[in-house]
């Protein structure tokens, strides 16, 4: 099963952390990435730039309207994502629980829809 792990973060709070602490969080994340590559569960993942750099695009009546800033308006914003392939949801949750952002903000675990299926 593949899972998308969404890293939710409060960008203002993250930037307000002391430099060493931010670095420590990123190093911690790096260690987990390496472990996932090692275990064969890693599929992909990236960090995102600050939400202020986002563009939200809506097309209404065939006309695209582009606004600056992210789609969601909450303080917590998407800061990055991982795609992992693991045996079950419990394992995906276990990975999310170790991710440092989960201690400060939140990680969201979403199963990825399979294009294939089996008859019942």
């Amino acid at each position: 099963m593949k899972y998308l792990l969404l890293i939710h973060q409060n960008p203002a709070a993250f930037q307000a952390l002391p430099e060493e602490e931010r670095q420590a969080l990123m190093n911690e994340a790096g260690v987990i990435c390496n472990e996932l590559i090692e275990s064969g569960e890693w599929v992909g993942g990236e960090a995102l730039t600050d939400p202020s750099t986002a563009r939200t695009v809506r097309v209404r009546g065939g006309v695209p309207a582009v606004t600056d800033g992210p789609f969601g308006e909450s303080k917590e914003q998407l800061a990055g994502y991982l795609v992992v392939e693991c045996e079950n949801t419990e394992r995906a949750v276990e990975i999310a629980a170790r991710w440092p952002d989960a201690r400060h903000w939140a990680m969201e675990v979403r199963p990825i829809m399979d294009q294939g299926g089996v008859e019942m």
Partner: protein
Amino acid sequence: MSDPVIAGGRVEDLLRELAPQVLGALVRRYGQFDAGEDAVQEALLAAAQQWPEEGVPGNPRGWLITVASRRLIDQLRGESARRRRELTVATLAPADEFVATAPGADEQPADQDDTLTLLFLCCHPELSPASQVALTVRAVGGLTTAQVARAFMVPETTMGQRISRAKQRIKATGSSFRPPPPEEWADRLRVVLHVLYLIFNEGYTASSGPDLHRAELTVEAIRLTRVVHRQLPADGEVAGLLALMLLTEARRPGRTGPAGELIPLAEQDRALWNRSAIDEGVELISGALSAAQLGPYQLQAAIAAVHAEAVSGADTDWPQILALYQLLERIAPNPMVTLNHAVALAMVRGARAGLDLLAQLDSDERIADHHRLAAVRAHLFEMAGEPESAREFYGLAARRANSLPEQAYLRRRAKLLGG
């Protein structure tokens, strides 16, 4: 000139068959599973390019061993040069831990012993299932990294990384190119069979269009399981797994409709099922059940055989299936088995009996939120003549589904009930 497409297909079949033999020969000669496996991949790629155009050489296995050996030696030379070391005989001498017990073992002709030994190595219990599966399909199955990546729908670089890390991990465990010792044999074989079953299941998910590559995995799994069965003909679980795969695969032509939609077992056109695969599967499982110690793959195959032998859904021998599920639940209990057991129970003793059995799964967190539980409950409510509840649970199952075709099927069922 033969049709290049057909010739290409034959070359590919031949290469997959030879892949484990060539790798086995290389590992015996040079004692390097990791680098040897890369060298064999390169030789297979070279053959896949050259043979369809230039023709298959007289001794294809010898050709591959020669080419792979050259690549391996080049690589080892390159490495030792980088380390500013001279190439010494020692570099190429077999590393102790990899030497096969029998001297001169590499002079043996093409033998299938290597396939099983390689499977034990690739399905090393230290590896995660995802790594075991990927490495097995490449190193033993002879698929290229690109093909493995496409089949499992992950980026090629990710798959390459997964495979190389898996090999490093095996190297780090100090595993030898030998079958496991007798006291570990049964457990290790169980892992190998589980990996083959995972490969099969990955390929059995029905889909149209974009992931046809995935369907190839069932063919690979059956081919590899056949090799294991040839080597261990008396093992009932190996025979059972092969039978289960054949009996399941036999239904493939009947399980989807013209638009790729899933057709439930009870409604499949059984004339479309693959008769020769059914015959082979039934023969295998009948032989295993009468001779070997009973195991979960044999029981699942026996259940599949009862379905396969029914001329129609209505003709199915449900009391027999129920008895088999009761046995399976005793020797290998798991919530998916209970789920299927509930369906069989409903068919024999009525929907209410099945629904009662399902109730115990609500407190089992392994399956409580699974769409299959809601789907079976919906089906049994439909059987019980309670369309409102059925519709509600089909809807719930559709929302929880993690498979697009299954979700579409569940929505159709809900709609048929006016949902």
